[in-house]
């Protein structure tokens, strides 16, 4: 019976979306009237019609698979799971390779932004910039908002911030995931930078973990090691370990076009203004001298906070611009792209948007991929986006969450919603 089939398929492919009061509801947790309607609708689609004086359809109209497929391809990504639960035929249509391929290639996808609404649980809202809608969302694998998170091409990589030994790669939409063995190297260290890079064609990926540890008793020397995971061999390799003098690694890194970029911070004692720098490390050449300090790229101007991201294999940085006389406050935010060894300024956040955030600490959340950059202040759930192509700044639709207590922090990350990729 199709009813039984529907429930079965629903349980099999449990969706990450849940119904929130007052918002777009997702998959209901019980087989209710809506789904029953859909079963009728499907039978309706398959029924043949008879010509009568009233009827306006040809005699033998039975909706063939290719037309059904075409219609379902117009649904927003968020609905695909639900329609896949209607019946076996529909499930087969939306799971077929051809459908997934067409779905991915025939339409415009823009990266979504996930915002945590709790610091203890991996729940929050995911924003779709095309439909301008926020969906109640629960993340797989991730424990809390303090975890390290990186994403590339529909896959999200995450690592816990306690033991730093739990590492997963998942697709947040389909909830498929793989647990990776913990990275080699130091067990206790100070800073960790996580990145992932997915090959769009083969779907294989590399995960990088850069560990930074202060050399005991020495304020200006730091041990920095690079560990790379290859999904093909399913193995880690420690490709570089060296001592940096005057600089340390932090938590900001990204892999772009086969190069690992690490944001580094000066440790020259006594200087109040902490300088940022950029180290590059080619994953393919794996030079034995590792990070090559002499390739240090300096920042275009003093920054309070830098966020690195991969926009179509270009390295883009969003940076906070400090006020000379007032530490801890930023006067603006800029966007740069790395061209060779030089930074090219792309845009500055216009004043009216800057003001719209209200409070803006010198440190903020920002991530981006493909053509879109998201910027969020830790102090409020407001979300701003910058379209790299159109060079346009735009507020997102207001997020349906309010600040519950003065010190509540909001953070998030962006990812591409894709159905066809699995870790």
């Amino acid at each position: 019976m199709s009813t039984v089939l529907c429930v079965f398929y629903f349980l099999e492919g449990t969706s990450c979306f849940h119904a929130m009061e007052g918002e777009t509801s997702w998959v209901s947790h019980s087989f209710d009237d809506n789904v029953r309607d859909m079963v009728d609708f499907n039978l309706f689609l398959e029924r043949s019609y008879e010509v009568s004086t009233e009827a306006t359809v040809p005699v033998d109209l039975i909706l063939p698979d290719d037309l059904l497929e075409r219609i379902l391809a117009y649904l927003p990504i968020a609905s695909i799971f639900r329609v896949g639960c209607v019946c076996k035929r529909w499930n087969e249509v939306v799971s077929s390779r051809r459908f997934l391929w067409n779905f991915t290639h025939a339409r415009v996808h823009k990266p979504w932004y996930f915002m945590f609404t709790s610091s203890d649980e991996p729940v929050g809202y995911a924003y779709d910039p095309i439909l301008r809608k926020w969906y109640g969302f629960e993340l797989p694998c991730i424990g809390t908002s303090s975890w390290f998170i990186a994403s590339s091409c529909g896959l999200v990589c995450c690592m816990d911030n306690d033991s730093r030994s739990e590492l997963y790669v998942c697709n947040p939409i389909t909830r498929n995931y793989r647990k990776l063995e913990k990275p080699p190297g130091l067990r206790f260290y100070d800073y960790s930078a996580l990145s992932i890079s997915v090959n769009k064609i083969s779907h294989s990926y590399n995960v990088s973990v850069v560990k930074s540890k202060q050399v005991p008793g020495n304020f200006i020397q730091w041990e920095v090691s690079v560990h790379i995971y290859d999904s093909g061999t399913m193995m880690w390799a420690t490709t570089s370990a060296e001592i940096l003098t005057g600089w340390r690694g932090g938590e900001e890194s990204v892999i772009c076009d086969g190069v690992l970029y690490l944001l580094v911070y000066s440790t020259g004692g006594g200087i109040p203004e902490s300088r940022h720098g950029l180290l590059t490390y080619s994953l393919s050449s794996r030079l034995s001298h590792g990070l090559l300090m002499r390739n240090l790229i300096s920042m275009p101007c003093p920054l309070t906070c830098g966020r690195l991201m991969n926009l179509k294999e270009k390295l883009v940085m969003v940076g906070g611009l400090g006020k000379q006389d007032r530490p801890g406050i930023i006067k603006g935010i800029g966007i740069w792209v790395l061209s060779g060894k030089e930074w090219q300024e792309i845009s500055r956040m216009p004043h009216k948007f800057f003001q719209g955030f209200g409070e803006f600490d010198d440190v903020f959340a920002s991530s981006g991929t493909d053509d879109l950059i998201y910027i969020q202040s830790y102090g409020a759930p407001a979300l701003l986006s910058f379209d790299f192509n159109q060079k346009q700044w735009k507020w997102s639709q207001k997020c349906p969450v309010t600040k519950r207590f003065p010190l509540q922090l909001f953070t998030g990350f962006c990812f591409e919603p894709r159905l066809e990729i699995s870790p």
Partner: protein
Amino acid sequence: MASESKMIMLRSSNNEVFEVEEALAFESQTIKHMIEHDCADTVIPLPKVSSNILAKVIEYCKKHVTSPKDDNNELESFDAEFVNIDKNVLFGLMSAANYLNIKSFLDLTSQALADIIEEKC
């Protein structure tokens, strides 16, 4: 030379004949192909499309061919109203749009059907 546009005859599944301007008929890639490759005679048979559906398809094409190119708002509201119809008819239109290979019409009707499905979900 008189700039009279050539007229094309289309015959529906129930043998009703519709006379339309070539420019309009060419909105359908299927018809255009048949004419350009001399596959059809004086009348083009469309055995998969009933006259009721064909009449509506012609109405859509006429509006889109004759409307000034920059009047997007008007076309948008025309399109929205056009698909605000009975599901049966919408199916017929989508099926015809697929068979006749009229891309904009196919996109419009497919999206309308997807919207109905989404609403029901």
